[in-house]
């Protein structure tokens, strides 16, 4: 690894002060993504500011029936937290679908949000990549792009956001609490991550001198009719080729409320309000779900190796919505997709 300085932040205010004073510094919490990037010479911070000991490790109920998750709660603890398992099982399942137990034990909730969007070329410092080196070009568009995006892409970048947790957070309409020199503010999960456009080097709308302090879940948890389905090249411990988070509220066979988000297909978790509109008020059956899939995938475009993702996503959306409607969410350990 390259040499860097190491300091600890004594509290949130100190963390903000330290990062504002040294723009080439980075916060480190779990470190699972950042240290990996440093080892590949993709991230080159001159100083790491250790925020892992800040008191941001609680999970607590909010006055309006939701839950506030401290940014430093480890992914494992969040997935197995009784409140999350009971009221937000979609979130629990999505977390357990990602990474390995060792990584989940280290990775923080806030860190999961700011892990870099991923592409093999981004990680290979010998190749052009607009995300790593703006203006150098995109190697993936005409390269080996099996894992890359099919939605929301630009001429400059077709990388995907790899988080499973964030796909569920998109469905649950989580709110990100951040603090910076100008004070605290909130960012809706949908507005937190960015599409690449002409600035793929910027993954999120978090300012460089801001810190995530908490993730808030609204009261609605969809704990009866939900499913998270992740399709990947291995049965476990691999990034999604396509993943789907689905949550429904049913009145008999009729869909009262519906939310669907896709992972592994875009620079951010992918939702489409229009797709959810065509679900509401309709019968919960395969043809309704297929209509929604068509709208969610409107404008999808493959780049050669990843063309298969469009058809795969269409089938995965229908299957996941069917699982949610039946009340039989995809199992984490039984790999059969029913």
């Amino acid at each position, binding site marked *: *690894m*390259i*040499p*860097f*300085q*190491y300091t600890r932040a004594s509290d949130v205010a100190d963390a903000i002060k330290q990062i504002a004073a*040294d*723009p*080439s510094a*980075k916060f*480190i919490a779990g*470190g*699972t993504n950042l*240290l*990996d990037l*440093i*080892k*590949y010479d*993709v*991230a*080159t*911070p*001159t100083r*790491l500011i*250790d925020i*892992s000991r800040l008191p941001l490790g609680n999970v607590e109920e909010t006055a309006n029936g939701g839950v506030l998750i401290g940014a430093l709660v480890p992914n*494992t603890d969040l997935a*197995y937290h009784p409140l999350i398992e009971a009221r937000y099982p979609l979130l629990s399942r999505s977390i357990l679908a990602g*990474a*390995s*137990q*060792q*990584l989940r*034990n*280290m990775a923080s909730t806030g860190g999961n949000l700011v892990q870099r969007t991923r592409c093999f070329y981004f990680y290979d410092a010998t190749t052009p990549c607009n995300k*790593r080196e*703006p203006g150098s070009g995109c190697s993936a568009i005409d390269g080996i792009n099996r894992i890359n995006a099919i939605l929301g892409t630009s001429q400059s970048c077709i990388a995907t956001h790899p988080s499973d947790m964030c796909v569920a957070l998109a469905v649950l309409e989580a709110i990100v609490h951040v603090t910076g020199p100008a004070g605290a503010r909130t960012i809706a999960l949908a507005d937190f991550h960015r599409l690449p456009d002409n600035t793929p*080097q*910027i*993954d999120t709308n978090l300012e*460089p001198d801001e810190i995530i302090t908490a993730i808030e879940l609204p009261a609605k948890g969809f704990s009866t009719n939900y499913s998270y389905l992740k399709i990947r090249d*291995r*049965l*476990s*411990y691999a990034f999604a080729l396509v993943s789907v988070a689905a949550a429904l509220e049913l009145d008999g066979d009729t869909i009262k409320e519906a939310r669907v988000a896709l992972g592994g297909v875009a620079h951010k978790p992918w939702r489409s309000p229009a797709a959810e509109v065509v679900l509401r008020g309709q019968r919960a059956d395969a043809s309704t779900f297929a209509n929604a899939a068509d709208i969610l995938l409107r404008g999808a475009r493959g780049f050669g190796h990843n063309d298969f993702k469009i058809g795969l996503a269409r089938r995965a959306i229908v299957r996941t919505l069917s699982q949610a409607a039946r009340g039989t969410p995809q199992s*984490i*350990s*039984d*790999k059969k997709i029913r």
Partner: protein
Amino acid sequence: MTHSGTTKPKGPIAAAPEKIPITLIVNGAEAKLSVAPWTTLLDALRDYLDLTGTKKGCDHGQCGACTVLVDGRRINSCLTLAVMKEGAEVTTVEGLARNGELHPLQQAFIDHDAFQCGYCTSGQICSAAGLIAEGKAKTADEIRELMSGNICRCGAYPNIVAAIQQAMGRS
């Protein structure tokens, strides 16, 4: 990078930061060492404390060979800075046996021939110790899923699962 483009480092990088003194509790004994900030826990264990049972496989958190228990939880020591674990209790494969008796997992791996080359084994065993402590895996499917962070390129997986089941008392 997102936030680094415009600002040059304030001093020459070559003026390497001084080593930082830390204390770890490793396999029950206090260990004091002085490490550069970028020293991983894996390198601290192997190069500073001569505990070479913990293996460096991929060095990127993808293979699990470096798995150790920190404060009772299994983690990848290759993606952990030693300085961040000041004061932590670390258990490596060398710390599992008690009074000259192998840990039940170590014995089970022998009983079931749960390895071929053995390079992944210390990580597999530490990971399995973490898995048993978590208490989430009950079935073979659940063991497979929650052990997926440990790769065995010899393909000893069926015997590894059997060994873990034996150690869990479910053989």
